């Protein structure tokens, strides 16, 4: 625990220097209690932290530590039992259901471990999906939606596979489609829940490379949940949960760089799905994952 305390001490200055910038996410005394039958589960027991725009926060912790619960609350999928959650300065716990849906639609991009793409639906249509739920003035015409979806797919390097179905794409490609989907409404935050949990090492690095690129080039705040320390090291800040509380909150000293690491790796195997010359989707059935 000494290391933890030291880390916390080391983390303090970084927190202090960010005080001047308005945090994009701020939670105060966050408590979440579930009742599963007779048992009461105290998933969060008073978590406090703030995230400034442009941070890449890796949240780790053993299962049951409350990191998933935090994720759901940050993603406006769940409400805290007590405590406050400010998103862009607005108190989310006071929002109506429809307002929350709007926030999920516009402000937050989700990336899941299991990709959660609609089957028998093309990559393009999958990426377009959040646009269909835009409300009011954000509504886009069909042509504009297609254009945006194509831009998004191109940003993750899948521009020429827009007409492929999920079962014609490898796991890494599917996850990239999911990232493209999370980007479509130009969110300020991306919440990634174990995005590399179903991927092999090389594909994981590729996916982390995309996140790093989005974080650095577009300044998107990324909150990444993972239980792999080496994946967490692609971020700028590490938050470790234990028993519903933050145990460690520190800056990552030696941040890994996915692009450099990829360059050092041996060239991708021929069946790697994103080789541009490869046009036939059928050959990717039963790809990497």
């Amino acid at each position, binding site marked *: 625990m000494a290391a933890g305390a030291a880390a916390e001490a080391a983390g303090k200055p970084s927190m202090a220097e960010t005080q001047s910038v308005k945090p994009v996410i701020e939670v105060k005394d966050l408590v979440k209690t579930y009742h599963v039958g007779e048992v009461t589960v105290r998933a969060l027991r008073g978590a406090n932290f703030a995230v400034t725009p442009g941070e890449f926060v890796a949240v780790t912790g053993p299962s049951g530590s409350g990191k998933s619960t935090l994720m759901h609350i940050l993603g406006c*999928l769940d409400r805290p039992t007590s405590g406050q959650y400010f998103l862009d300065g607005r108190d989310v716990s006071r929002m109506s259901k*429809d307002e929350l849906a709007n926030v*999920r639609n516009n402000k937050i991009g989700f990336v899941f471990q299991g990709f*959660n793409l609609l089957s028998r639906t093309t990559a393009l249509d999958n990426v377009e999906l959040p646009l269909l*739920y*835009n409300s009011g003035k954000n509504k886009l015409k069909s042509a504009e939606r297609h254009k945006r979806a194509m831009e998004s797919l191109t940003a993750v390097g899948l521009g020429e596979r827009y007409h492929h179905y999920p079962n014609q794409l490898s796991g890494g490609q599917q996850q990239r489609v999911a990232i493209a989907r999370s980007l479509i409404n130009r969110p300020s935050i991306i919440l990634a829940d174990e995005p590399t949990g179903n991927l092999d090492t090389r594909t994981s690095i590729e996916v982390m490379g995309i996140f790093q690129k989005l974080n650095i080039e577009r300044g998107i705040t990324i909150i990444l949940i993972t239980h792999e320390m080496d994946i967490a090291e692609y971020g700028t800040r590490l938050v470790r949960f234990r028993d519903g509380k933050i145990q460690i909150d520190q800056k990552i000293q030696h941040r890994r760089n996915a692009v450099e690491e990829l360059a050092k790796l041996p060239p991708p195997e021929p069946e790697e799905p994103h080789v541009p010359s490869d046009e036939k989707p059928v050959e990717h059935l039963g790809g990497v994952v």
Partner: protein
Amino acid sequence: MSILMTLRIALKALNRNKMRTILTMLGMIIGVGAVITMVALGRGAQATIEEQVKSAGTNLININAGNFQQGGVRQGAGMATSLTAEDATALRQVPGVQYVSAGVNSRGQVIAGNQNWSTQVQGVDVDLPAIRSWPTKYGSFFTPQDVNTAAKVAVLGTVVSDTLFGTDVDPTGQIIRIRNQPFKVIGVMTSKGQGPFGQDQDDTIFTPYTTVQKKLQGIQHINNITVSSETPDTAPVSDAISVVLRTRHKLPPGEPDDFMVRTQEEIASVRTETTRTMTTLLAAIAGVSLLVGGIGIMNIMLVSVTERTREIGLRLAIGARGSDVLLQFLVEAIVISLFGGLLGIGLGFGLSAALEKFLQWPTSIPPNAIAMAFGFAAATGVFFGFYPARKAAGLDPIEALRYE
């Protein structure tokens, strides 16, 4: 989300599971098809009755003599001797009355050569063909001169003519014997077919009513009067007739009529009512299959919601409101039921046409039945689609995303 987009999403989802969609639709198709076929059959039967009423003569009013009472002993209806030929003449002056024919009924054995036949002999007036819109096939009907002189002339119904003289033989000028009295055949009526009560209207002989009175029965009164009104609105005319007859018969107020006035409409309405009841019953039974079809839709939509739990979770996570999800599933249910309804209307038309062609059952599909069946199909979709849709919209996104 716009309704058009919702519709597109629904069509895509239904297209993904074609077989299931078609099977679910089948319930709707059969339900709507059955309702339409049953209504078509009922309407066909009704139209047949209307046709028969028309064949009996439109705008028809029948006046029968009332019951005869003597010393407290009541005889059956039509036995009274209260109606006279003068009554019939008086009715010609009633406003709205077009034609009047006095009638005396008799039965008898009819003999022609070596053939004989028992049939009814109707004594009528010259206007009867006009009242019943019933022309002659051969020869002509008798004249006022024949009525005045109680001439022994007869006009045969086709059944009598065919029986006594053979089919397609013109018997005009031949002599027949009715109750052993010779009558000259001066004409044959065209075939009229069944009357409103199923009796054969062609199995009859017409003679002047005076002839039946004097030569066959030896009576002064008549049995009935047949009147046609100028318009199909027979009710005021029949009321006026009652007034005239009561005055003529010197009936004080409070005394019951000694005659009965019935319009053809009243006679027909009894049978029409019966048919309508049958139609309603058949349609109700067919409606049950529509209900079963609706439950089928609900069943499949519930399965679909369970199956697509993760999809729903995802949609909620990326910004779909509960109402968006509700609408999506509701529209799917409505698309199934409406499309099924459309095909069902087609099936209904096909079945009706087949029944008419192969079983010679008359059918007629009223346009409002189509609208009704279609509307009912849509309502079924909304009603049975709502519960599964609400279930989908109420899912917890976290639970839904975790669902395996």
